[in-house]
């Protein structure tokens, strides 16, 4: 159910994004040799998908602040910091991961804007670091036997100060909806570089990374609203 709601929101967001983009395209006028200046500055915002997901899903809370800084026509330095808490309910275990994370990297805008517009179709790379606790709340030994069935055991074993390091590849779009106000959506593919596992257990979810698949990979999704504080125009 949860997965479907993500997909649905994502679909909605994508179509919204495209619609806005189209609306912003003004009819072609003579460009001549004019150079349109665009704003450079610090863009600050928040990921609003996480509080929305949290309201749907009682096993999740999360908050993320995002920022980027334009260093030339195409390239932005970008970073995100955030907090996530997620209870992974599996058939044989119930565990909670909770902690903070930071991601830093670059975005490359591959979109050629008309006039002085500021929209982006971007790709990006990130390095991510999460520091978190993981608690094994309860588990049921998988004895695959009905003859001696096993019962759920309350464990409450917490491992603190676990870390995860990863890389991310991002694709997304940003649209300037009002002057200096940007709406952005992106998806990311993540690869674990290193992760601490609790003793005799496994890190199933790392804040900032999300669910860690058996292959050490994961997917992420962002929907952010951010505001550009313009410093200069170039």
């Amino acid at each position, binding site marked *: 159910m949860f997965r479907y709601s993500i997909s649905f929101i994502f679909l909605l967001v994508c179509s919204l994004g495209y619609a806005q983009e189209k609306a912003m395209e003004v009819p072609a006028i003579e460009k001549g040799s004019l150079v349109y200046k665009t704003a450079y500055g610090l863009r600050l915002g928040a990921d609003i998908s996480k509080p929305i997901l949290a309201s749907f899903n009682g096993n999740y809370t999360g908050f993320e602040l995002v920022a980027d800084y334009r260093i030339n026509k195409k390239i932005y330095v970008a970073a995100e910091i955030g907090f996530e808490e997620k209870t992974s309910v599996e058939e044989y275990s119930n565990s909670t991961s909770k902690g903070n994370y930071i991601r830093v990297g670059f975005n490359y805008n591959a979109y050629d804007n008309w006039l002085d517009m500021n929209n982006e179709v971007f790709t990006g790379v990130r390095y991510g670091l999460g520091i978190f606790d993981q608690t094994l709340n309860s588990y049921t030994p998988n*004895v*695959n036997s009905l003859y001696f069935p096993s019962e759920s055991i309350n464990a409450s074993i917490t491992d603190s100060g676990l870390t995860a390091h990863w890389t991310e590849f991002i694709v997304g779009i940003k649209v300037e909806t009002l002057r200096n106000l940007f709406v952005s959506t992106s998806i990311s593919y993540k690869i674990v570089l290193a992760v601490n596992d609790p003793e005799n257990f496994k890190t199933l979810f790392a804040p900032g990374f999300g669910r860690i*698949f058996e292959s050490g990979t994961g997917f992420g999704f962002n929907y952010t609203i951010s505001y550009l504080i313009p410093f200069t125009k170039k």
Partner: protein
Amino acid sequence: MILCTAILSGCEKDDFCTKDPVTPKLVLRFYDANDRDQLKKTERLSIWAAGKDTIPTYRSVALDSVAIPLNTSTIETVYHLKINDFDGNLASNETATFTIQYTPEEEFVSRSCGFRVIFNDVRFSSDTSWIQDFTPAPLTTIDNQTTAHVQIFH
């Protein structure tokens, strides 16, 4: 966009536990006491743990190998093994008591498979009955069931 949706709603390969068995069972093989290299089927074998019903798959069967679960929440499982080499009449049943003592240990396997139980410091004992002899007396660990753990001679 369709791709994104497919990725996000897709079925993950670690959703299902494909390892079988996760927790190993105790594997017994039955050999001829007179020709100890020769497997010998038990006649009309029934197996039940003390205080429990007969295991449905082992109710009056002729087999040379069985896999039986150990109770993971205790340190001892007592099994009764009944055979009848003669005629199937109640009076000619022979019942042996085979006791397994161990230290269970929980070991994490994976997200979908959870924790399995392995058995350390395993010791076996048997009363004198149709089981004339068995090997080995002690066994370090039961952590798989790819080979037999106990050879029973009868």
